[in-house]
């Protein structure tokens, strides 16, 4: 029995490690490639640790393409969407969870239904709408339509439902109106939910590709994902530069993931609970 258990343990760790390596290796390969000389790039068998290390690939990538500009553009749009999403989903989630108003459940169903609609169906009508509004090449086109995320509202509502019922009565005794109650009692309590909504929103906007591709054509205003694809078009065989650029574009997400991973994972794990 003992022996069987040890074998089982070894097998579990073996497969977990194998899976882990599969997940990480492409990223390590990207970093390794990004520091290679042209000669090492095609070396056979592949070289894992570049020697000599060629840091210039990064300055060349940044120098030949406006990555810094794209990063700042993306940061601006991402933060705008994040702030708006947090406010809107906080308000709506609070209303759906704690206020008893007419047609509440039906309206919530509408929110859930819009979550199921594939973005590609609305791709052309939204393109037309943005054109008619005169928002082409404007960040308004990337920010405003993204502000209402059904999933964020859903997350906020779930969180507010989990808070004790006595909170409102305590606030009533203190003479707080509904807005004061939301702002000074519920918002401070909902920091973990806000953090989860924030990281998911960040991830969604930072990685968004379809909308900037359709709605932004001004080169200086482009987002990092579309910029990256254009860079690939221009330097298709210089894999050392492409990998340097890819790494730079991923770096902000990696950093935030490193420091806030429990909120990423919490948010995703919760999505399984709605079934």
């Amino acid at each position: 029995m003992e022996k069987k258990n040890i074998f089982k343990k070894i097998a579990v760790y073996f497969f977990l490690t194998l899976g882990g390596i599969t997940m990480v290796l492409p990223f390590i390969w990207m970093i390794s490639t990004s520091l290679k000389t042209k000669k090492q790039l095609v070396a056979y068998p592949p070289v894992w640790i570049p020697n000599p290390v060629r840091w210039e690939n990064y300055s060349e990538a940044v120098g030949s393409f406006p990555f810094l500009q794209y990063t700042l553009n993306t940061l601006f749009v991402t933060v705008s969407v994040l702030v708006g999403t947090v406010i809107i989903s906080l308000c709506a989630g609070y209303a759906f969870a704690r206020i008893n108003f007419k047609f509440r459940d039906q309206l919530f169903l509408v929110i859930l239904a819009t979550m199921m609609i594939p973005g590609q169906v609305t791709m052309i009508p939204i393109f037309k709408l943005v054109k008619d509004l005169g928002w082409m090449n404007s960040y308004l086109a990337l920010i405003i339509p993204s502000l209402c995320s059904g999933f964020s509202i859903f997350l906020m509502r779930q969180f507010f439902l989990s808070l004790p019922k006595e909170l409102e009565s305590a606030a009533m005794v203190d003479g707080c109106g509904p807005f004061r109650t939301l702002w000074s009692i519920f918002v401070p309590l909902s920091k973990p939910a806000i953090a989860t909504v924030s990281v998911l929103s960040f991830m969604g906007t930072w990685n968004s590709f379809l909308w900037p591709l359709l709605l932004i054509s001004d080169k200086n205003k482009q987002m990092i994902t579309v910029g990256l694809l254009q860079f690939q078009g221009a330097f298709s065989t210089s894999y050392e530069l492409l990998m340097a650029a890819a790494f730079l574009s991923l770096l902000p997400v990696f950093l935030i993931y490193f420091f806030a991973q429990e909120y990423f994972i919490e948010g995703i794990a919760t999505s399984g609970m709605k079934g």
Partner: protein
Amino acid sequence: MKTKSKLAQRQNFFGYLLILPAFVIIGVFSLYPILNGLFLSFCEWEGIGNAAFNGIENYITLFHDEVFGIALLNTLVFVLGTVPAVILLSLMFGSLLNQKIVGKKFFRSVYFLPSVTSGVAIAMIWKWIFNENTGLLNFLLYSFGLDSVSWLTSSQFSLISVMIMSVWKSLGTNIVIMLAALQGVPRELYEVVSMDTKSGFRKFFHITIPMISPTIFLIMVMSVINAFQAFDQVMALTGGGPGNSSMVVVLYIYNQAFKNFKMGYASTLAYVLFLIILAVTLIQWYGKKHWVYSEVE
């Protein structure tokens, strides 16, 4: 009585006020575009000027569109190839992570890593890995004594390459969801059963699978929807080629709308895709009662 209705009125007012911003955006950027998309699908429109109504002409064109047929077939292959793989692998790794092991959180974070990254950057990395002459994957095959494969440049393998990359990218999310479900299975259930059976496999198939079947269902439905919508990664990895060998429906819609400027026809394609997704989702929904465990019933 009077104060009660006044309170209800106040509640209504604040409720509507708080959900107003959300509904303005949903109304303008979801509901209106859906209706407008339906209208555009019956129009000819080149992206400028007004859309001209042309009846069901687009729908007739669609039925004779060979490339759409290819794209639809590729998309179905993509769905049928990736979804079962994602379900089985996430179930396997979720179960492994649910054992008593050291470093559970570390492994979970590692598996989730590809899920936080952008499809374009991922496709760039994989393009390099799939490279025929100097790519990592062919070197690996060579080390095992196998022949090298033209992953991206042969029409035989291009779609498979996209599928491999997509499974790799979406696995982490589903492992996290699966693990959360597995952790939610009450321990007592296993204890009751371990009285009369010691087989781990029987426990797995008689308790674990039924208990987490709602989550498996959810992962299935979401993965199918996502797979039908594959776009970023296909565009950045193969661009649908060579030929149309890895062309998927959404990429075809994009090309029709923004390369050929047949926006009306592209709307028709988009609507048909929407209806297909809806039908597939409903079929899964009605099939649910045969295998998904529900506490209510």
